[in-house]
């Protein structure tokens, strides 16, 4: 066991640090450090334009998606180098939010299932941020029960014709491409009749409508498909194998989110260190200290669990469902922290104007964004089911849809 850098790792760290020093957009450092989860603050600059610019700068110098093979726009770096890069990139890493879904979930799916030509065409541009991708999975009738989705794909010669609707598609309005899961057979059990594709979001018949979220932003969208045609060459995996392909995406989703997940701990620690309560400094209040200790222990536990997963990965082991704990712990914790932090500040803690509220209102943004962390990418309940069934081996839930053809499953409407 060794938590320090080897000489090669030290050298890598120094190279990365020097390059970042010379090339990072230093003018964004201050606003970015006030970014909490759910609010990328770039001051007077456009967040997406700045994100694309930084991503392209990195890509041109071989610092984008460093774990990917070189021919796909990466650097061929090891998992540990990738962790080191993340530590060194620091606050500028907050600019990558726009690309997480594409690089963290769509790309690994493409790497596993797309043909070589498609990989060479699409992956480098995904790495460089020149093209943004989204994940078209959830539907009004298929969220937790993703395999209950209804969007239809029907084969017509060399193309497929898509009709239906996706919902909660993050970033669809900025996306160039997306991966799409559809139903190609309703007369078999629900997991068996699915097929995966990737598509051009500018295709005829794709209609994207942003949805206003509870926190006031519009990160996610409804996406309607009206006779959209997708070439068969853009199919990922076999016809009817879509569930298997989707699991690749979802597994990577946990990894992409797992390691460096935001918990809100640095934010609450900073607040506590400067806040003075009626009975003295917050940092000497026993109730505050007790919570701080609990949250630190949890966030350190996540960090160290992530480190163990990286170690396993570098030994060639495949990280399993145990990585579901990351988002499960972080989501609830962030919500608790935000509530507590606001509470400590009294009514003034509710101010959401970044010009007035402490740290550009990062805590308030967290308060309003954190409920979604417990829903997106698998709800808290679904993650507990996964841990219970796939890690602990407890019996499956009783299911009303087992062994029935999709078309015969009760829908409640």
């Amino acid at each position, binding site marked *: *066991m*060794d*938590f*320090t*850098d*080897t000489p090669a*790792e030290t050298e890598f760290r120094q190279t990365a640090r020097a390059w970042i020093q010379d090339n990072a957009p230093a003018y964004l450092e201050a606003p970015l450090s006030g970014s909490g989860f759910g609010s990328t603050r770039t001051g007077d600059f456009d967040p997406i334009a700045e994100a694309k610019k930084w991503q392209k700068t990195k890509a041109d110098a071989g610092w984008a998606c460093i774990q990917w093979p070189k021919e796909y726009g990466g650097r061929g770096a090891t998992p*540990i180098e990738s*962790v080191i890069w993340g530590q060194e990139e620091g606050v500028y890493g907050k600019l990558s939010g726009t690309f997480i879904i594409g690089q963290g979930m769509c790309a690994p799916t493409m790497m596993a299932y797309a043909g070589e030509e498609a990989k060479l065409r699409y992956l480098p541009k995904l790495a460089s941020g020149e093209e943004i991708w989204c994940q078209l999975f959830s539907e009004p009738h298929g969220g937790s029960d993703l395999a209950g989705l209804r969007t239809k794909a029907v084969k017509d010669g060399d193309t497929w014709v898509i009709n239906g609707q996706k919902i909660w598609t993050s970033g669809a309005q900025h996306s160039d491409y997306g991966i799409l899961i559809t139903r190609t057979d309703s007369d078999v059990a629900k997991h068996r009749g699915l097929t995966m594709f990737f598509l051009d979001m500018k295709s005829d018949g794709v209609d994207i409508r942003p949805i206003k979220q509870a926190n006031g932003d519009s990160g996610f969208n409804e996406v309607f498909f009206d006779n959209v045609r997708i070439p068969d060459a853009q199919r990922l995996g076999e016809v009817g194998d879509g569930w298997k392909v989707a699991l690749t995406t979802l597994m990577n989703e946990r990894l992409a989110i797992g390691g460096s997940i935001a918990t809100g701990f*640095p934010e609450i*620690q*900073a607040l*506590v*260190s*400067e806040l003075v309560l009626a009975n003295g400094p917050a*940092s000497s209040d026993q109730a505050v*200290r*007790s919570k*701080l*200790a*609990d949250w*630190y*222990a*949890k966030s*350190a*536990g*996540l960090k*160290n*669990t992530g*480190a*163990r997963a*990286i*170690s*396993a990965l570098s030994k060639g082991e495949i990280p399993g469902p*145990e990585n579901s*704990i990351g988002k*499960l*712990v972080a989501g609830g914790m962030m919500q608790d922290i935000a509530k507590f932090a606001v509470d400590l500040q009294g009514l003034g803690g509710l101010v959401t104007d970044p010009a007035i509220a402490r*740290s550009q209102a990062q805590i308030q943004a967290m308060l309003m964004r954190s409920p979604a962390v417990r829903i997106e990418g698998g709800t808290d*309940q679904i*993650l*507990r*089911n996964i*841990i*219970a*069934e796939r*890690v*602990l*081996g*407890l*019996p*499956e*839930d*009783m299911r009303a849809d087992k062994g029935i053809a999709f078309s015969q499953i009760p829908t409640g409407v």
Partner: protein
Amino acid sequence: MNFDFSSEDRMIQEQVRRFLSEQSPLSRHRSVMEGDSLQASDVWQGLAELGLQGTAIPEAYGGVGAGYLPLCLVAQELGGVLAAVPFSSSVYLATEAITCFGSTEQKERYLPKLASGEWVGTLALSEGPLAPSPTNLTVARSGDTVSGKKLVVPHGLAADFAVVLVTSDAGTDLVLAGLEAVERSAVEIVDPSIAAATIDFAQTPCESLGEPGDGWTMLETLQHRAAVLYAFEQIGGAEQALNMAVAYAKERFAFGRPIGSFQALKHMMADMYVALKLAESNAYYAAWALQNDAPDLHLAAATARVSATQAFQLCARDNIQVHGGMGFTWAFDCHLFYRRSNYLALALGGLNEWENKLVDALPSAVA
């Protein structure tokens, strides 16, 4: 960077596991806690034959000199079977105190006998219901003797000597005192397998350990180091409590289905698993910090300690819940874990104390 134990460390763990599964089943723990014997001396002897008490003791003093990483894994195994041996008091506390603060002469006198298991040591700290502090100690040193009453001393009935925290002219001292001629009586505590004692020192001969006056600082160091090892015992216990719950939930039927298919129970066990995983990962980091005397050892140790206490208490508590009425019987083993989880939670100072230590050790916030 490499965040896992080496295969050599794992081999030692495997060997200990095999030994304990044969020689120290829960029934062995139970016979001790029900009063058949003071401690499982056969298990103690077997551990000694494997050289385990001397795992981290340097070879020059009769130990194995294998360091703290394998010792952590030994602790995890002992925790899993609730071994009824004075390992924690003797190895993590008494041995550690002499290794860290003893003179060469003291090391030569004590460590070989501790390594071989011939001597058992313990730490005599607490004096009553209050947590000890530099200002509330009554056990006092006068020259080369110590007098006063310590309550509760874990493994105090089984120990040959104690490291005693005393008040003195210099402030607070740590002293070594032999226990053969001292009046000791059994005191019942929540975990009866601990051979806890009240010890009445009456002008008992003692010698300084480290510099007089440094007692409290040394104690703090000692507690942080031991916290890492206690954390591994705690995660060992938590893991077995969870295993027990999962196994029962798969077998027991209610409403025509295994109770493990009810989400209320599945989610409860998922949360036990999460607490265990976090504790395990923090303990791994702390093990490394202990082995390497890392600058953040105190923070790492307090973090591991807080997580491990939370995990074992949660797992032991909810293991009872999963078992229903069976869980509340003397005959089922659930209460053994529950008792041990509460003992280990307090053995080095309770959760609240460690939360404070953790916050004190945090590097200042970067706003």
